[in-house]
């Protein structure tokens, strides 16, 4: 019974408690490049904030997926991008650090420290502009392209002992769910 319960919880939708909000603003295609703007509102639950204060770094991932609508068929996924943002607490300075390593939304690293969690989340969220390019494909073919976006807490980046708890507890399943908008040529 315990096993079935655990399996059942794991099988639940990943973002039952949607504490992240994403509002698509615009998305346009230029050649094989997409420029999208969305407003992200991020907030943490008490449990995740407590874990952050206890030195557990949290990773918030913004995922983008380019889809092509097909008549009578499901949408074809053309490409997918992940933009992780890590937030951690610096005990010595008492500040919250926001760090985007590798590929930020604009393709550059960014680092910042903030006095409060809210400031840090506001810096990680807010109006975000995404510049992404699709390799080996031109998007000017007149197809009906859609862009999906979501933001979620990356449980797999948590320390191993915490992952099971995070999977089971709704307080840890933070996410916006997929939001989609049509790409304009």
């Amino acid at each position: 019974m315990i096993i079935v319960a655990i399996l059942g919880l794991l099988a639940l939708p990943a973002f039952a408690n949607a504490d992240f909000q994403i509002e698509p603003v615009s998305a346009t295609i230029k050649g094989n490049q997409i420029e999208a703007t969305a407003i992200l509102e991020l907030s943490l639950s008490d449990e995740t904030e407590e874990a952050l204060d206890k030195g557990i770094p949290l990773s918030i991932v913004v995922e983008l997926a380019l889809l092509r609508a097909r008549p009578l068929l499901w949408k074809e996924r053309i490409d997918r991008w992940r933009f992780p943002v890590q937030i951690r607490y610096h005990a010595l300075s008492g500040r919250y650090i926001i760090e985007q390593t590798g590929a930020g939304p604009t393709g550059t690293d960014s680092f910042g420290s903030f006095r409060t969690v809210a400031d840090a989340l506001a810096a990680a969220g807010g109006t975000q502009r995404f510049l992404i390019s699709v390799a080996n494909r031109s998007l000017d073919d007149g197809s009906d392209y859609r862009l999906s976006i979501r933001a979620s807490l990356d449980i797999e980046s948590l320390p191993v002992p915490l992952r099971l708890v995070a999977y089971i507890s709704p307080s840890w399943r933070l996410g916006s769910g997929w939001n989609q908008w049509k790409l304009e040529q």
Partner: protein
Amino acid sequence: MEIRAVIKRATGPAPSIAFAILLLGAVLLLTAAAQHSEILSDHFSILVIVNLLGILILALLIGANLWRLVRQFRSGILGSRFTIRLLITFALLAILPLSVVYYFSVQFLSKGIDSWFDVRIEQALDDALLLGRASLEAFKNDQLRQVQEDAVHLSEVDTQLEIVQLLDDLREQGGYFEINLYTQSGSIIASSSLEAQSLVPDAPDDMTLSKIRKGQVHAELEPLSGGGLQLRTAVPVHSRGVSQPVRVLQVLQPLTLRYARLGQSVQSARDEYERLAYLRDPLKFSFILALTLITLVATLIAMWAAIWSSRRLVAPLRDLAEGTRAVAAGDYNKRLPVTSGDELGILVQSFNDMTRQVYRAQNHARRSQHEAEQQRTYLETVLSHLSSGVLSFDHQHRLRTQNTAAKQVLNVKFDKEIGSHISTLHHHHPWIEPLVSAVENSMQRELAEWQAEVILVGGRGRQVLMCRGTRLPGRGLRGGGYVVVFDDITDLIQAQRDAAWGEVARRLAHEIKNPLTPIQLSAERIRHKYLDKLDPSDRPSLDRATRTIVQQVESMKLMVNAFSNYAQPARMNPEPIDLNHLIHDVVELHKQTDKPINIILNLDKSLDRLTADPDRIRQVLNNLIINTRDVLAEVSRPKLTISTRRITRLDNKFAELSIIDNGPGFPDDMLGRIFEPYVTTKEKGTGLGLAIVKRIVEEHGGTLWAENIDARGASITIQLPLDLARDANVTDPNIKITRLRAVGHRKQ
């Protein structure tokens, strides 16, 4: 069937062992992942799901097996009870130690993790952090004070060039990394940085500017992206002129390497400890979960192994039980598969050897029984076709077997007498008492072999039996019983008598008849020569004497002729005759006599014509009717019934003629010899009437016998063959004898 075979193969030992090993491997990987393995920790969740699915599949398989076992137990299938008992034993043996180990492991794990965290260490780390913060605070205050002094110096210069120059001087004097002057709104006025490439100064944020506008100062440590800390200090720069706005002086100073390293070390140790402390419960949960999964997998594998072992152990026993049942039901050809070389395999092999031996013995017994039955059938056939009667008795002198001839000779059915003691055999059949006495006497005397001639007098008249008895070999101390063989030699004696009478007739003809003619002629000559010459007084005497001689000689001639006719077979002229028509003719003749009797005819109209000499058959009918009429002379209401019918015996067809009267019947002492010459109850007559009847009937291949009727009267029955005489010369005595024996029903 194919699906079942696939399922059976898939749930066989090899796939099950492979599955169990895979599951154990998955559990080990999960354990490694839980222990922060670099590679496996990324797949921790997948491993959990794989393990849970494996456990679920294993649990389902075990559940299905248990359900099947329960169904077999409810259906009373052989071996299910023992399998369940073994399964429970194995499961308890596996689960109980596992449960104990699990309990103590959880306890040790929980306490072990708790022991990692010490309040003193936590306090020390907190203190170290506070110490670090205090040290940094002192550094910060020194830095603030110095920057405030720099701000005073900066307030004394006005021109841009002077400001830039002063900033450079201050940066060099203070050893700052970067020093900048901003307006209240955050616009850069002048900047001096250690890194010439830094084109864009790190501007203070809005909160800092707001504080400056309020007249406050700002000094705060900030973490750097590459590690380390920098101190951001911002103070207001008041101008000498009242109307001039307040400016903002910001100094960025990274901590010295030593400070940074020490601070980072304190930070890292404290962070690690805090993280571990926070993760204490999830860590316990993960470890306990891994331990639970391992225990669960081990328990389920133990259960699976218990089911498999129980079935494997019980399978030969079940086969043995089924084999025993089959043997008990008579199937001795049952063979069981020998699946192992252990003691159970030896037991199964022994069972197979035993059933093989029993099967052979059974076959041998069956063959012997078959042979015995064949022998018995052969004996019964022989016995049933024997003309000799056979009776056998067991060691307790009870009748066991008898043959057909015995029934016919003794006129006893013997159906109810089987199993009866010999002393009781004659209770319902008194006429066989002499035979019973002779046999019983021999048994009591325990004679090994004996022979005796026994005379029975019953409904069929006088019978002479030649009996021979033999004691059968016994078994152990028990006697073996007796067998008695007897022959009805009445016919044989009769034939001997007939032969004797024939010889007598031939002698009479030769020795008596020949002298009679000279005697007669001599008497007539004496009478003719001397009658006239004698005195008249002597003449009558001579006349009487010679007449008497002639008459007596004539009478003797007639007697000798009659006897000669009887003794010598006459030439017959057989032809197809209608017996019923012949009977009508003869009866009609006798109705015209002086003393007619009531003759009732009961003739079978379907009677076939038979081949016979009509004159001889007419003589038979005349003799019988005359004989009967003489017998009925003194009966008040004489009645004679003549009947015919067609009978079939042993595939032979006969015409049966019966003459029944209501007279006094035959005397018992004469009944057996009534067809012999000169055996008669009448004072007159030759005494050859019935003897001639018998001879004619036998010359036609027929049989006849006389019986007394219980109520009153007697009967004479004649059976004449309907078929044989058509193809053979009935005068041939050999044919006659052969046929008589073939019929086997000859009666006197």
